[in-house]
């Protein structure tokens, strides 16, 4: 069954569309990475499918329901979102921020329930920020902050996780750790994971399916073995790359082909 299904989706900010004619179905338990150049519409697509943009056309179904007609509380019970750039204001602690992930499950005046506390503790443990609970979000490094925001999304306890460039502020060890964590959530807990990602190797190593965007439309979609080809990368990214097989996983990996511009 498809947990998320975009049908002829067009979306943008203000006037005009950044993403056009996107039809995309994500099955329950899948790990899908959306790839493309800067400005190709990855972030727009991730925002549009959860109803965050006002300027949309087409339809998105989440669990069979029309996302554009669902209230934000209802959507938040299905989809957790980790945005790309988070610049927190005010001195909230990590624990307070993770607890914000429980908003859709709390009454407006109710206190923190045992279920809330358990979900927050579990999310912080999984992301390795349990020891940082009393720290201010503003005091954390980029990587710690990113993991705290992933913890907030996990505390939401949704079947679907949407992440916008989760590797952006992370060094190489944390990139592997975050993707390992997402992979574990998908494989062991049956969560569906959709990431927008610019790092092709990272996506190919973890996602079961890659969706390539160019100028706001889907130009290729399929497992890494079929889609990460030199021809595709040249056509979509305009970059000449060499493809080789990863010695351990057998998955395709790219490296930039040396470019000579000698006259």
């Amino acid at each position, binding site marked *: 069954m498809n947990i998320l299904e975009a049908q002829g989706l067009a979306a943008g*900010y*203000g*006037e005009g569309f950044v993403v056009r004619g996107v039809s995309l179905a994500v099955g329950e338990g899948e790990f899908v990475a959306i790839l493309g150049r800067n400005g190709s519409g990855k972030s727009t697509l991730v*925002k549009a499918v*959860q109803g*965050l943009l*006002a*300027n949309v056309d087409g339809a998105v179904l989440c669990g069979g329901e029309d996302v554009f007609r669902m*209230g*934000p*509380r209802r*959507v*938040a*019970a299905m*989809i*957790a*979102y980790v*945005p790309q750039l*988070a*610049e*927190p*204001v*005010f*001195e*909230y*602690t990590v624990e*307070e*921020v993770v607890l*914000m*992930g429980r*908003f*859709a499950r*709390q009454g*407006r*005046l109710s206190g923190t329930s045992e279920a809330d506390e358990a979900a927050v503790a579990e999310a912080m443990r999984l992301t390795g920020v349990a020891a940082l609970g009393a720290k201010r979000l503003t005091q954390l490094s980029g990587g710690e902050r990113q993991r705290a925001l992933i913890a907030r999304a996990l505390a*939401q306890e949704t079947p679907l996780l949407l992440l916008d460039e989760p590797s952006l502020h992370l060094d190489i060890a944390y990139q592997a750790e975050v993707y390992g964590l997402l992979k574990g959530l998908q494989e062991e807990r049956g969560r569906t994971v959709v990431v927008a990602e610019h790092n092709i190797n990272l996506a190919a190593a973890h996602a079961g399916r890659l969706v390539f965007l160019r100028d706001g439309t889907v130009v290729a979609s399929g497992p890494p073995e079929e889609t990460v080809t030199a021809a595709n990368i040249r056509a979509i990214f305009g970059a000449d790359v060499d493809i080789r097989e990863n010695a351990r996983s057998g998955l395709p990996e790219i490296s930039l082909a040396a470019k000579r511009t000698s006259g």
Partner: protein
Amino acid sequence: MSRRGGRRLFWAACLLLCLAGFLLSLLVGPVRTTPADLVAFVKSPDRVHAAIFLDLRLARAVLAFLVGAALALAGAILQGYFRNPMADPFVVGVSSGAALGAVAAAALGFEAAAFGFSGPGLLAFLSGLGIVSLVYALSLRRGGFKVETLLLTGIAAGALASALTSFLLFMRSDSYDQAVFWLLGSFQLAEWGQAATIAPWVALCLAASVWLARDMDLLALGDETAQALGSPVRRVRKAFLAMSALLAALAVAVSGIIGFVGLVVPHWVRLLIGPAHRPLFAASALAGGTFLLYCDLAARTILPAELPIGVITAAVGAPFFLYLLHKKR
């Protein structure tokens, strides 16, 4: 100290200070009264002391408390709204707009009093709300509404209103004395009627803001994130903007412009008990009311003649603010 422990201490201290402030306000004034007089009055009320204790001093203290609570709550709301601890009711133009209305009414001799408001008070209230509506309408664009646009439009509209106020003062310099009342604030004309008019609205806004406080917490993470976490962001923003405008316009309508309370009190409170908005809104209202109670006490006792309260709020507020700011770093 843990945040929870800090909060308890803060509430206890604030409540104690507040009660002491009311008691002092009852005892201090041009007519000498002692605690014994107050005790005697409570045991067997008489008309002279009823006039002094209740109609003059208590009415004034209650009004000062309500206005302080309204301004601090409006400030706390707007700082959350703009995700900026430097925001206060001046940034959306409501204070300057209300001042323009009051000064215009004073200059034109507009005297139609209603709802416990004086003529200038009434016009101040209407023009304060009017200018916010105008600012809001101007910052609505096709395809969306940006908080930054609202902020800049509000500052520009406030500057324009201030210019018009100065122009009126220049043209009608004979209304200067009355204008000072409105531009620097005072509780000299406090009456029970004014307190009764604004009290239900202040209470309503406080209850509504506490109800929506968690939504405000989410807004600190950005509008898109707040909505993704389940908050109906557009409606929440409208409600908060309307509440802050109403609170600030009411405050100016009964006491003129009193600066610094809306900026500084929520800031203090945030430094002391943390940024979570549910305790912050309630604590800001209590702390703002208490702060203004003492400022009014100072305004009417420091010199033989009464000082405009705006002078006191800034003179007391600024150093204390700096102290807290540097102590925390």
